[in-house]
């Protein structure tokens, strides 16, 4: 069974989205999935998949770790994997997040990559448990045709497998694929397959052995904005005088089907519903409340088309790039704003201060290929350390800003493939003595003092040689 599957994979059929359950501590066959349901949401350009699994321990030893696996083709696109277990009885079930970590296995079939789920309570033999896995894939919708004219709408291809790829035996499984509109050009049939409205149902399939795959392909219309930020640098500058200055540099690109040929303004203006449907004019950025002095500009100046709606709980900034973004078009811009420091900076118990700020991109429904967060600490702060709920690359830099002598320490956090799921809080701890706040005013004051002294001295000293 395995050999033909491998052959198919190497023939670059790009099989997607298979989930494996492997229990490392016990033989593979000890665990089995009695019921699996997968819902794949293709309505935006971020593919969201919800997986409900019922796992049964058929072995004799308790299992506490479960492996999730994805094929290599998905590895670069996988933005986030989360597992949630429901706890408690029917009425008051609470969802508990389980720890998920990437794991490497030496003899992974199909070049699969693995994630380990650590169960809160070990699964005893004979018992079964249900939990949910949520994962997101970015840049997984391939535009086909890859280039479209202004009057065409955007068609994309999504590739996956009708069967959940699994090292385990799956007793019963079903996959639902939700498309944004009923306009589906074609889809692979793996009987039983049903289509109703915007939903395609694969399954139920009974008793599939481990590593079963059945590639499918869905070709459908998706005109949602494929807004991808290729690079985002967020700089958060802390000033203990009461301000938090945030500067965000975006490289935005429309990652959908490339625009081909003519861009006709008269059509774009007069028939907005039928031309350039996949293009987008504006984006929404959700900023923290009490934001002030917001600006929106690029290398060549201010961009006048933006609106800020602020209330006590959130601020929404509607930004419009200089020109509508058609497929493949790019725009770079900078958003900057100030925030009151007391909302974000706190003192911890051990005499340290910490900044509590959101990771991720404020733009709604966008993917960030590479996100860099730079937290610029005030001059004279020591021992910086960052606490981020997911793995990121970290290093330190030095930055010179206004009136800096020794430079400010910058904590740099980098992460690739960021989706809105990553908009959680992170903390940067550091030690700062308030006396350093006075350094710059004192410097300025002494500079002016010296200047006046020099003036007075000059007026009172006669430097001429002749009398």
């Amino acid at each position, binding site marked *: 069974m395995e050999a033909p599957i491998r052959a198919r994979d190497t023939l670059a059929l790009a099989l997607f989205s298979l989930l494996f359950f492997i229990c490392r501590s016990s033989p593979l066959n000890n665990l089995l999935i009695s019921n699996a349901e997968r819902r794949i949401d293709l309505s935006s350009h971020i593919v969201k998949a919800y997986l409900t699994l019922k796992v049964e321990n058929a072995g004799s030893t308790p299992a506490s770790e479960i492996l999730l696996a994805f094929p290599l083709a998905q590895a670069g696109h996988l933005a986030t994997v989360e597992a949630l277990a429901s706890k408690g009885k029917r009425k008051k079930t609470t969802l508990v997040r389980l720890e998920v970590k990437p794991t490497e296995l030496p003899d992974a079939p199909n070049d699969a990559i693995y994630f380990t789920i650590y169960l809160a309570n070990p699964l005893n033999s004979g018992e079964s448990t249900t939990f949910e896995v949520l994962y997101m894939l970015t840049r997984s919708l391939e535009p086909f045709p890859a280039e479209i004219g202004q009057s065409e709408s955007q068609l994309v291809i999504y590739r996956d497998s009708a069967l959940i790829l699994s090292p385990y035996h799956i007793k019963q499984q079903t996959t639902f694929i939700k498309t944004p509109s009923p306009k589906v050009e074609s889809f692979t049939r793996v009987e039983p397959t049903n289509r109703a409205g915007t939903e395609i149902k694969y399954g139920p399939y009974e008793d599939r052995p481990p590593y079963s795959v059945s590639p499918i392909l869905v070709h459908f219309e998706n005109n949602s904005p494929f807004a991808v930020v290729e690079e985002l640098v967020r700089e958060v500058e802390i000033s203990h005088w009461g301000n938090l200055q945030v500067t965000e540099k975006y490289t935005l690109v429309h990652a959908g089907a490339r625009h081909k040929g003519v861009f006709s303004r008269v059509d774009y203006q007069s028939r907005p519903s039928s031309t350039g449907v996949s293009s987008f004019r504006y984006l929404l950025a959700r900023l923290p409340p009490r934001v002030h002095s917001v600006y929106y500009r690029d290398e060549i100046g201010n961009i006048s088309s933006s609106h800020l709606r602020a209330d006590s709980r959130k601020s929404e900034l509607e930004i419009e790039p*200089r020109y509508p973004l058609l497929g493949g078009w*790019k725009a770079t811009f900078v958003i900057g704003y100030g925030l009151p420091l007391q909302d974000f900076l706190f003192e911890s118990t051990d005499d340290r201060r910490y900044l509590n700020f959101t990771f991720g991109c404020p733009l709604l429904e966008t993917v960030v290929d590479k996100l860099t967060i730079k937290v610029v600490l005030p001059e004279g702060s020591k021992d910086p350390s960052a606490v981020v709920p997911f793995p990121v690359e970290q290093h330190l830099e030095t930055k010179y800003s206004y009136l800096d002598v020794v430079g400010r320490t910058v904590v740099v956090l980098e992460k690739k493939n960021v989706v809105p799921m990553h908009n959680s809080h992170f903390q940067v701890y550091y030690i700062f003595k308030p006396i350093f706040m006075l350094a710059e005013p004192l410097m300025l004051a002494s500079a002016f003092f010296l200047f006046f002294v020099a003036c007075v001295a000059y007026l009172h000293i006669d430097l001429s040689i002749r009398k």
Partner: protein
Amino acid sequence: MSNIPAADLLKPFKLKTKQQELLIRVSILCLVYILAFITRLFSVLRYESMIHEFDPYFNYRTTLYLTQNGFYDFWNWFDYESWYPLGRIVGGTLYPGLMVTAALIYRLLHFLRFAVHIREVCVLTAPFFASNTTLVAYFFGKEIWDSGAGLVAAILIAVCPGYISRSVAGSYDNEGVAIFALLFTFYLFVKAVNTGSLAWGLASAFGYFYMVSAWGGYVFIINLVPLYVLVLLITGRYSMRLYVAYNCMYILGMLLAMQIRFVGFQHVQSGEHMAAMGVFFLMQVFYFLDWVKHMLSDTKLFQAFLRITVTCTVAVGGIALGVGMVSGYISPWTGRFYSLLDPTYAKDNIPIIASVSEHQPTAWSSFMFDYHILLFLFPAGLYFCFKRLSDATIFIVMYGLTSMYFAGVMVRLILVATPAVCLISAIAVSATVKNLAVLLRSKSKAVQTGSTKGTSSGKASSKAALDQSQPFQKNGAMALLFGVFYLLSKYATHCTWVTSEAYSSPSIVLAARGAHGNRVIFDDYREAYFWLRQNTPPDAKVMSWWDYGYQITAMGNRTVIVDNNTWNNTHIATVGRAMSSYEDEAYEIMRSLDVDYVLVVFGGVTGYSSDDINKFLWMVRIGGGVFPVIKEPDYLVNGEYRVDKGAAPKMLNCLMYKLCYYRFGDLVTEYGRPPGYDRARGVEIGNKDVKLEHLEEAFTTSNWIVRIYKVKPPNNRW
């Protein structure tokens, strides 16, 4: 002068009269310095901190290059992004003074740990130098008249619209620092002439060097100064001071100026600089004769010697000049210089100079607009100058008269005349007010003390008349003082109004009033340039009329065929020819120039009148000047330029027309008008069915002001 009752009240802070005067003077100067700066910030407050217009974008781009790559790279910069495929040797074809100044300010600020962006430095360079100019004006006024006149001059020049027009924030052009350098050089030279000190002469040489490095207008200095020296020689005011000042300034200034690559050996090779050299030799002859006269006691002998020397000198000078001209060692005058001396020259011979609006002869209204009351204070000031002639006043009179002539020839040279006009007007104001004040103050004191204190020599005669009808004169003086005050306040309001309304628009961003009185912004230029920057291949070549060249390279970061540095007339004419040909002919030209995109500016939707259709006749003229296949009458109907149904057939089918009006016939621009109604020209266009064969619409901005077309690759032959 002293204000004793007021000083009594402030006994602890009692200052001596001189100290009081100093305090008032310094504080007025400080206020003027600040005022000159902030009055130029209208555009920053109303729009944003941005670079204005066309040429400043080139300066900004080069400054950016200078700060990023250092001076040597800048000096050796070969810019392949402009004048494709020729390129441009930037370091050797620009005046680097402005860029180096801005880069130095930038470095200094960064050294002091002020993390400003280079753009802010560039935007505020012109206001900063305008402030410095007010200081120079003060010292200059003090030198030629007295400190009162200096103060008035500083105030007048701080807000004078003629100067503000070229020095608002964002107007990052050579003139911004050059007027400072010009006035500073003049001041130092006059100081050198007045003192005869080598130090001041040296300083003026360095001032001249800075001016040469900053602006091509240095030619004015190198011609005015010899002219002035000549006038002093003729009027018998030759002195050792003049000899020292001129020789030091000329020789050192010339040597220093040769260090600027763009100027090079022009000081000894170009016809425009020969006057200075001639006067230099003349001075040596003069000095020599003086010496001989001193040595010879016999006047007859001297007369004979004089005759021989003068004949020889004239002959040698004439022969040298003739040989230089014939052999081509001395280049003839350039077109711009000719057009200054003969205003009709450019119109007949060099359409590219005539096509620039700022090279047009000045209308009377713009004198009134830019000078306001200075226009009639100027003659009054001249009167005062003539009444108290000195070396310095002769200089300012000559400066004023010559620059006024040039201001009449070319609109942009109003700028050069402005400092002179302000200084001379300041003399008028200061002298008048002083006279009136003396009249008023003579009440409390004895008449005699007033007349002895009167500084101007002309006062003594009027004092006699004053004694006879004192009460009436006092009221008259009061009224006149109020009149002066009224005029000056009118001047201030006028200047503020002009600055705010006329000179503070960046011309990249257009603002208009909407139907409900709200402000509508047309940001189409930047929309198009940014689109070019982001969505075209980095090596794409853009063809447009030369006006937009600098902006495309600076903001769009793309290669252009021609730009505002109009050094190659043939290249511009080629573009003009392409724009005025039929599409297939134009396609051949564009293919030969490797053009990928064509950019046109079109105002038909918004009613923006300075668009390419209105500039089109200049393209035809410039193109036709080099390529006789393009004939202006083909585009006109009975000598009339029109775009509607009655337009000439060639006009309706030339590339420019097609690109501007492509698919315009489908658009309704104004309610109640047929589709294809051109709002800029107020007509319905004549060719609504524009078909393009070799080009396709690549981008049109939201208000249609900029339209970009892509040149298609050639069709396959089979």
